[in-house]
């Protein structure tokens, strides 16, 4: 596969072009059916239908945003090439062993008259046993060496000096991202710069958890790593293409595990720097009424807004809330209307969320929403 192939592309053999070939083969099958017994044709037809069903399932898979078939970043691309290798081996084994089995089942079925005498009793053969022990051992050796090499290549890297450092902390049911180099904290939407292969600027993530075990998984960037309280983990990503990459928590963490969604924005260096600059500033709020409501209610026990008295750490940092595309860890789009509904009653988007309904009056709601909308 060439470098220019898109995300999640499949090897040429699985592309749509293969289908017409298959069909023409099927046609030849139907001509042959005149000569051969009908059974063979039927089998071939079924195989063709099944295979094209599989193909369409794959074709349908290609445009998806969370596919594990990705070359957009290392280490995901390393996993992908290893996947191709493993799938080839396992499919090969399946074809060989499966055909042996199918042959035995079809060929040695009892025929009329067979019940009169038992077949020849064969008790075994050491040579044969030895051969089907040694060949699998050899396959295991090859597979293990390839695997070990990739494990060490991904795990035992040295962090370059110009890497971006992020501390990611899992919470029930949202993500906290701290940028210690830049001195700010954000939530749910991670921004990283695209990495130039000539001068890579990978992002190194330190993973932790504030409560239970979570798992950080953005399939198109890297495999998952768990976030375990009291057991800090590390992972890295080196994305080569700008774009928005989706993922979600992949270790069951409680009621709203399903709505602990995650986004990674891979940006050009200039966009990333501009984003960082904005995140570093204090909140500029002009909505005094809404601010007063926000600060006099329990909101500030959990939420922080930099530059104000709000410094709660239990919930997401709201300093630049409006710079995010989603709220409630991806459960809803970040629009003023959704914000209002969310503050009024979090259950509308996420029934098991730890954010309580604040029982604000409609007037207070309007004011708070207006205040939040200024947190750009």
């Amino acid at each position, binding site marked *: 596969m060439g470098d220019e192939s898109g995300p999640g592309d499949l090897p040429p053999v699985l592309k749509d072009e293969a289908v017409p070939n298959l069909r023409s083969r099927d046609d030849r099958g139907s001509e042959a059916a005149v000569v051969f017994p009908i059974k063979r044709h039927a089998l071939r037809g079924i195989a063709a239908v099944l295979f094209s069903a599989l193909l369409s399932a794959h074709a349908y898979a290609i445009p998806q945003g969370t596919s594990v078939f990705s070359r957009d970043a290392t280490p995901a691309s390393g996993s992908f090439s290893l996947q191709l290798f493993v799938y080839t081996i396992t499919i090969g084994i399946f074809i060989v062993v499966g055909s042996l*089995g199918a042959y*035995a089942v079809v060929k040695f079925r009892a025929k009329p008259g067979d019940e009169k005498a*038992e077949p020849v*009793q064969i008790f075994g053969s050491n040579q*044969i046993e030895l051969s089907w022990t040694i060949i699998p051992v050899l396959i295991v050796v090859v597979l293990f060496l390839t695997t070990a090499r990739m494990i060490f290549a991904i795990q035992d890297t040295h962090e370059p000096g110009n890497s971006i450092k992020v501390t990611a902390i899992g919470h029930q049911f949202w993500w906290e991202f701290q940028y210690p180099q830049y001195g700010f904290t954000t939530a749910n939407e991670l921004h990283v710069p695209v990495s130039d292969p000539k001068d890579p600027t990978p992002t190194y993530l330190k993973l932790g958890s504030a*409560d239970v075990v979570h798992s950080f998984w953005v399939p198109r960037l890297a495999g998952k790593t768990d976030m375990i309280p009291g057991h800090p983990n*590390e992972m890295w990503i080196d994305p080569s293409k700008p774009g928005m990459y989706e993922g979600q928590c992949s270790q069951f963490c409680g009621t709203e595990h399903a709505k602990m969604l995650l986004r990674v924005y891979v940006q050009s260096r200039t966009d990333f720097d501009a984003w960082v600059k904005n995140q570093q500033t204090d909140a500029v709020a002009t909505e005094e009424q809404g601010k007063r409501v926000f600060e006099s209610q329990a909101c500030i026990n959990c939420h922080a807004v930099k530059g104000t008295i709000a410094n709660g750490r239990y919930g997401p940092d709201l300093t630049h809330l409006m710079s995010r595309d989603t709220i409630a860890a991806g459960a809803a789009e970040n629009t003023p209307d959704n914000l209002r509904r969310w503050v009024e009653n979090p259950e509308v988007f996420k029934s098991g969320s730890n954010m309580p309904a604040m029982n604000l009056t409609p007037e207070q709601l309007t004011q708070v929403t207006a205040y939040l909308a200024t947190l750009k």
Partner: protein
Amino acid sequence: MSDSALPMPGGGVRDVTPERPSTGHTVAGYPVRETFLEKAHSWVVTVDHKKLGIMYIVYSLLFLVVAGIEAMVIRIQLAVPHNTFVSPQVYNRVFTMHGTTMVFFVGMPILIGFANYLIPLMIGARDMAFPRLNAFSFWMTALGGILLYYSFIGGVGLSNAGSAPDVGWFAYAPLTSKAFSRGHSTDYWALSLTISGVGSIGAAINMIATTICMRCKGMTMFRLPLLAWLYVVQAALILVAIGPLTAAQIMLMVDRYLGGHFFDTQAGGSAYIWMHFFWIFGHPEVYVLVLPAFAFANEIIPTFSRKAIFGYPAMVAASVAIGFVSLGVWAHHMFTVGMTSVSNAFFALSTMLVAVPTGIKIFNWIATMWGGKIRFATAMIFCVAFVFQFLISGLTGIILSVAPVDWQLHNSYFVVAHFHYVLVGGILFTIFGAIYYWYPKMTGRMLDEKLGKIHFWIFLIGFHLTFDFMHIPGFLGMPRHIYTYEPDRGWNTLNMIVSCGAVFQSVAIAIFVYNLVYSYFKGAEAGADPWDAWTLEWATTSPPPAYNFATEPIVGSRRPLWDLKHPDDLDSQWE
């Protein structure tokens, strides 16, 4: 064949007149009592391995239906994105109960039930080594299941599905701590598994003792039916595996009620230790479930291929090897928890190595069919499907053993599809095969073959619709344990297909249950040996008398009934 004298080649017939209590008259050795209450009483107080075996099996089949209904709830909820069929809380309870029930109250007891029923018959014994321990084990297992399901009505009551456990079947700490799991749901989970664990350990001790000590004359370890061999390995694994689980449950209860901090991460406890404890149980557990599946295939495939099992010594060696290797693979469930690269490489290698003895088994089954005259009775077609499906699940297992691939696929629907392929495509298929094969022995009546074939084909279609297509959402990044999903991820159609397959499976199970009941009353008479088989259980009547054999059988080979049927071609000359 009558239940009196059993002449065996290579040995005489000992005249042992059974002494039975003379309360009322007896039919097939069981005393016939007058009232229903007395009949029920006789089942409750029984220490007879056959009655206990049947109770284990019936108990498990009831839970199979219950956990199957839970699976249907899961599939209805996931059929379309953003579904609101059940609330997140109820969904989490349902998948936890589905997993826990299927492993501990369907898989374990039904397999132990078959062991109970078959091992003494197959080795020519009159009962298990410790009949009372046997009854105790069954009732402990039963108590565990009842306690688990009491959670639905205990606690806060029926609303919101009671306080059924909602922490997933592997219940990672600290989600199970008092801070995150309020109420008693986790207590029901921990206590019921502790109790049923006691039952499993009792059953395992009994199986080993029976197989080692109760074999009839001439039944050396290398003439043991492969089924018994596999159960010895299985029982050894139970003994090793259940201990850590029980220990972990006790530590969890200490944490929850006595102020312990084993898993309390906020007080310096370790979430990591729970994972190790759980999976050092959890992985051998997979083999605890799958070895009996091999055991059934080892009996059924030769009988219907009309050939001796190919490579008996290799099969024994492979089983023992699987037993040992399976003790060293548990951390392949933990490739993503941040182990060192060396640990990851070690567990990748040990996991790949399991493929070797497992491969030997698959090759030997194919070689057994090779050159045979295969009769496709329902029991056999289930086992043939098993061989192919188990091959596929083994290969997806190899894919998952490759750690960098597992980092992607771990906890995704690919994994869910993989282990359901093992548990349903492997184990449940052979359990169905075993029921079609031994039901005549247990009840004296044949299961209806026509219904059986319908059951097979509908179940096969449902199985493949569900679990073949379930692999793909895993490739597309769908994690497990989610009660709903976003509609733009490309998972919609696939989930709908998976759910449709589940409907087929339910229909098939309904047909199967109908067949079980219908054939119990209306099935054809089975006779002692309906399949023309070769192991000792077919030498006695169907159902066997309470004492199994009137005279202790004496065997001269692995297939005593082959010798009996072919006195001019004794197996012993070839073994």
